[in-house]
């Protein structure tokens, strides 16, 4: 076997949490297939220290490619470095995170290698030389399981599903040659808007608090933000399609079939009745709490716990109680 490639995503010289998850998933696959994990981290300078920790999650070798040109994501640069790496080292499966960056990068890598790509895997296994991938379709209304015999199997894994688990390896760090010479790329990231990294994304947060029409006014999302804050930076605020369509919240916050599918540990649906397209996007959450004034709302049919009542009274109380708990 020729190894499992794991892409370790970083931002501003820091590995992202999902990098541990990708390496953990790769470790499991490598153990099932009897092969090694090769983790690759690309970025500007300052990554080598952070990359060393990937050994802790099961990387046999960690390759770090640092270049001033990689201070920001370089779509074509990253693709070229990764495709060269895979051609040189061989690879049975290449794992990426199903993040904005991973979902941009992985299909390009696959197309350049001439192989298929499966996104958002929620299950991975190695069976008889093939990598078997389970992934949602129709935003999770059904799941598909595919045995990929093509090499490499190029896959992105959904954040929060493969919980990072320590499986220490020596994790020797090698530096990777990322000199692309005078390569002239057609697409260049020139700027990063907003404080990227400061705001937790619904697709990655362990707690998601989503609001719907029941909030009545965009200004009332402040109540959700206060509750999210009370959870001490572990919670993100999401939204239903109705309120995104109404322009109350940006599309990036939308949970559902035409938004993001999420799998947090705790999902709190506030003033959301539970349309089929919303349920599709959040039903794989580990625990679901519904707060709604209508006891017949479909959201209660999938919720583990529910409170019936006026969210404008319930939310402030909840924020107050959570603050006490977290103090």
């Amino acid at each position, binding site marked *: 076997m020729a190894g499992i490639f794991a892409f370790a995503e970083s931002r501003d010289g820091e590995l992202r949490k999902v990098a541990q998850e990708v390496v953990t998933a790769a470790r499991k696959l490598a153990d099932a297939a009897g092969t090694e994990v090769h983790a690759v981290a690309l970025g500007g300078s300052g990554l080598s220290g952070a990359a060393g920790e990937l050994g802790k999650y099961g990387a046999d070798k960690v390759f770090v490619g640092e270049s001033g040109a990689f201070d920001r994501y370089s779509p074509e640069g990253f693709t070229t470095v990764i495709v060269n790496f895979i051609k040189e080292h061989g690879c049975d499966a290449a794992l990426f995170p199903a993040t904005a*960056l991973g979902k941009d990068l992985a299909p390009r890598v696959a197309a350049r290698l001439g192989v298929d790509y499966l996104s958002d895997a929620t299950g991975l296994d190695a069976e008889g030389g093939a990598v078997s991938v389970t992934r*949602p379709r129709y935003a999770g209304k059904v799941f598909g399981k595919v045995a990929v015999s093509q090499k490499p199997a190029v896959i992105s894994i959904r954040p929060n599903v493969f919980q990072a688990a320590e499986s220490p390896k020596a994790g020797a760090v090698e530096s990777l040659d990322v000199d692309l010479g005078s390569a002239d790329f057609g*697409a260049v990231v020139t700027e990063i*808007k907003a404080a*990227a990294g400061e705001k937790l*994304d619904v697709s990655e947060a362990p707690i998601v608090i989503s609001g719907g029409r029941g909030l009545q006014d965009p200004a009332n999302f402040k109540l959700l933000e206060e509750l999210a804050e009370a959870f001490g930076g572990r919670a993100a605020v999401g939204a239903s399609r109705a309120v995104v369509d109404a322009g109350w919240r940006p599309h990036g916050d939308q949970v559902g079939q035409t938004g993001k599918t999420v799998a947090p540990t705790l999902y709190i649906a506030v003033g959301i009745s539970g349309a089929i*397209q919303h349920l599709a996007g959040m039903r794989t959450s580990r625990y679901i709490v519904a707060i709604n004034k209508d006891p017949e709302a479909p959201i209660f049919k999938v919720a583990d716990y529910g*409170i019936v009542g006026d969210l404008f009274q319930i939310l402030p109380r909840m924020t107050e109680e959570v603050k006490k708990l977290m103090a």
Partner: protein
Amino acid sequence: MKSIVCVKRVPDTEARIRIAGDGSSIDPSGVKFVLNPYDEFAVEAALKHKEAAGQGEVTVISVGDASSAETLRTALAMGADAAVLLKADRTPEGLAAAKVLAAEIEGREYDLVLFGMKAIDDDLQAVGPMVAELLGIPVVSAVTEFSVDNGKVTAHREIEGGAEVVELRMPCALTITKGAYEPRYASLKGIMAAKKKPLEEKPASVDAPAAQATLSYPPERQAGRIVGEGPDAVPELLRLLRTEAKVI
């Protein structure tokens, strides 16, 4: 400016999805099919930029069976100028779809190739970047808004907690997500006009899928319990989340 928009026919978001007897496809009976919602944003973006420039051409292309012609007519009714159906006996996904589309686009003159960020049926989010790779042109995905100036595209792209600004050299590809382009409704006039617009059909040769998926339903969630009514139920809810669910 010449734009090409690749579109797909998919089940409506409100559709209940049932697995067919073969275990690897869905039962289309009773399902309403629509133009993929993300592709609507892409069609709208192409039309907006054509209108702003006061000139240009928008061609929509789809690969699929005969029923995809209806989806192309929807895009023509919105205002696209011409349509091409690459006719196959099934609608391919991923690399197989990208190869058919790239082969068609390669022989055309174009400045921009637009896609919806993802198809809401296979959820792959792969075809746009794959077509661009096959054509050897730059691409940026998850674009909420872009401008065109002097042979250059400046695109805003959604990332976790913010946005990236990407500059691309034309010709290039963009995959569009919900943002600045609110899809227009086709007017009656548009629908009538669409009937007279060219819709070319060509046979496509589609690679067999590398592997067929076996479909299953997600495990049913059991309805839980109503902890109580009103704010007084909050302490009990938090106690359950802490001691029973152990999530906070």
